[in-house]
């Protein structure tokens, strides 16, 4: 956890110009998370092959 927090502090100046964008991204990801049904899964390893 300490390392994770340290990384956040290190990157804070780099991320500062993106504050509005990151807020927007978090809001949109939260909206997706609310809508996903429990049965939704990530793509299976061979899912693209099954579409062909």
């Amino acid at each position: 956890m300490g390392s994770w927090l340290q990384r956040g502090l290190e990157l804070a100046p780099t991320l500062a110009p993106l504050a509005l964008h990151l807020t927007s991204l978090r809001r949109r990801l939260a909206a997706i998370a609310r809508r996903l049904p429990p049965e939704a899964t990530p793509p299976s390893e061979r899912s693209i092959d099954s579409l062909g």
Partner: protein
Amino acid sequence: MSEAVAFLSAAELGRSFARREISPVEVTRHLLERIERLDPELRCWITVTSERALEQAREAEEAIARGAIRGPLHGVPIGIKDLIDVAGARCTSGSRILAEHFSARDAAVTERLQSAGTVLLGKQNLHEFAYGLTTGVSAFGVCRNPWNRERVPGGSSGGGGAALSAGLCALSVGTDTGGSIRIPASACGVVGLKPTLGRVSRRGVFPLAWSLDHVGPLARTVEDAALMLGAMAGHDPEDPWSVPRESEDFARDLEGGCAGIRLGVAPEWWADLEPAVAAAVEAAIARLETQGARRVSLEAPALEDVYTAFHAIIASEASAAHERWMRERPGDYQELTHRALAIGYTLTAVDYVNARREQARIRSRVARWFDACDVVIGPTLPRTALEIGAAVSREPAEAWNRLTVPFNLTGLPTISLPCGFDPEGLPIGLQIAGRAFDEATVVRVARAYERDTEWHRRRPPGAA
């Protein structure tokens, strides 16, 4: 040698070499001379492998003279994006971090193109680590668009697109994670074909995002893109994402026309197009309709959700790929690349998993479109080439690549080809996507449009 030779298609060059009408050595020498003359300003190339190219061209010429022709691309001069390994050559990914890195082994795609008898002119410029849309961020200089040198060529495979447009090679190898083959194709007025995910091996290609990365051709004609894909594709057991399918003759039905083809259109995705882009794409669809194609409307997933899932996946995976250098050499990245890579550290594992779950839902929904249509058609980019240095938005409604990312998320084969010019003389691209592994239909429809138009024959000012 006539300057027109620099703009012959790869197929025309291959046929002329086979008939011994022109010499691969002379064409290679001519292109190397053009690179020396034009590239100091355009910056399409990071490394030019002149000696190797001339040696390969001599070998090709001798083999062809003996009748040992390896295929339609034997002797054809190509460029390879500088994040793809070529044994013994420098491979920088456009970054100071790898400025002195030399590849020990060929990438799978390099091996296949060498087996096809192509001649490697060198390694092409790219947006640093392929993480950007302009090729304006590279440790090896800003790449410029031959149509207007104050504009970007698009990216990340910008060197490949610009080099084709300027007549500095006959084919380029690109990679496409969020549009990086199709964006430079559109912005530079050439053809870019992103194949189905897993169709072309990624072994020996520096990753950007494993779930989204594709390798594919850039060319000046649809036929060239189809021929080149034929040489690049095929199963590779060393790439876990490679699908167990052998390559095909993707040009087998190239002149089949588009009578009876159903063109799917997703108008909700077309908000805020530049007027010239909207007009050119509508005109292109109308032209295909006159050839017997039929337009059908599709209900599309919200572009905001598509772009958000895409962004969470690319940001997470790219940051994972760069974890060590982000700790040890953060100051060696270009500032904008470092900022883009930092975004991944703000996302959680839950965000990433949910984005992948959303990707599966979008992929499944888009796959069902093909019950109602044969291809999906629309603009490649919402506006033509950006000014060098212009800000590039990551907001879904504004992002320059918002129309290309859906086909990375779904992995479907997608082509961009020229369909007009804006009032400033900048190229406009038409994007056509198909069912998984149905590249043959995608190139057939693209060719039906291309053969009915002259856009692909125009040359940038000062290049001819």
